[in-house]
């Protein structure tokens, strides 16, 4: 990581860099597609097990839609705050990037906190993942999404300090910020399916 992005690159170097960026972005996109298959598998499992209550509580009895509404709003808001961070990064406004990243981070953390409190409440009421096949698949699916969000948040902290530090908003940094934006928006897309099919679908 000794590369200094603020160094004025030669034309040839620039072209090389651009090509590298494009390959990185495509590679990251392919990774996201494999992640898509992981979530697709978990959704398929949930769809087949969502009525296997084993005498335990059903989704209708367990899920608090108020909580889901707040979680959905938070994640959607965090999607556009990250978008605004990226717009400012392209405009090379470092201060604004840091503010929007911080805001996105706060929203992300509150989402994870809400999810943890929801999970612990479920476990405390004896509706843990060991209760029924329905709850196992619920915890596996929603937990995997929550884990992704948590990893995205750690990534965001790292990028925050890299933008703040010597790296600034060079082309390498832009690639990193764009990769995280793809990751973050992708997680919001997964959440659309989670609230539609897992929460709302169980309450119908």
């Amino acid at each position, binding site marked *: 990581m000794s590369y200094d992005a603020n160094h004025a690159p030669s034309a040839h170097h620039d*072209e090389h860099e*651009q090509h590298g960026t*494009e390959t990185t972005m*495509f590679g990251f*996109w*392919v990774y996201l*597609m494999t992640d*898509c*298959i992981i979530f*697709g*598998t978990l*959704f*398929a*499992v949930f*769809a*087949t097990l969502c*009525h*296997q209550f084993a005498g335990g509580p059903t989704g209708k009895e367990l899920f608090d*839609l108020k909580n889901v*509404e707040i979680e*959905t709003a938070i994640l*959607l808001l965090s*999607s*556009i705050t990250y*978008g*605004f961070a*990226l*717009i400012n990064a*392209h405009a090379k406004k470092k201060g604004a990037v840091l503010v929007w990243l911080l805001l996105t981070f706060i929203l992300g953390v509150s989402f994870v906190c809400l999810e943890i409190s929801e999970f612990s409440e479920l476990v405390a009421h004896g509706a843990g993942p060991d209760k029924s096949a329905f709850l196992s698949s619920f915890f596996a699916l929603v937990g995997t999404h929550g884990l992704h969000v948590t990893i995205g948040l750690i990534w965001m902290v790292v990028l925050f300090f890299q933008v703040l530090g010597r790296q600034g908003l060079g082309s390498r940094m832009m690639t990193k910020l*764009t990769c995280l934006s*793809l990751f973050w*928006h*992708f997680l*919001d*897309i997964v959440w*659309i*399916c989670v*609230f*539609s*099919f897992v929460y*709302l*679908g169980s*309450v*119908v």
Partner: protein
Amino acid sequence: MSQNHMTSHEGESHGSYGSYVVGFVLAVVLTVASFAAVLSKAFSYWTTIAVLAVLAVVQVIVHLVFFLHMGTATAKKRMDLFVFLVTVAMVLILIAGYLFVLWDAQMNMMSR
């Protein structure tokens, strides 16, 4: 190719405040519609599930276009789109296959 890349970098590839806000408003409307469809209890079980599925698909497309800036403008974007469509096909086969096989098995084992 590099020409394409330049335009994609300066053009809509990272969106504008306007496009993010439009995407956000559409997403909010669709989310509210999903919750309303369930909470109003206006439809039967399977109709509600179908309404939820349609709204979810539309909202996913809104996110892909307005937040992930997918499109067909450049060769790179078309490649991304192609890879995405292949993945969607795989996921659909996966989910449909799962439901087809296991739903049937559950019914026959009377485990519901």
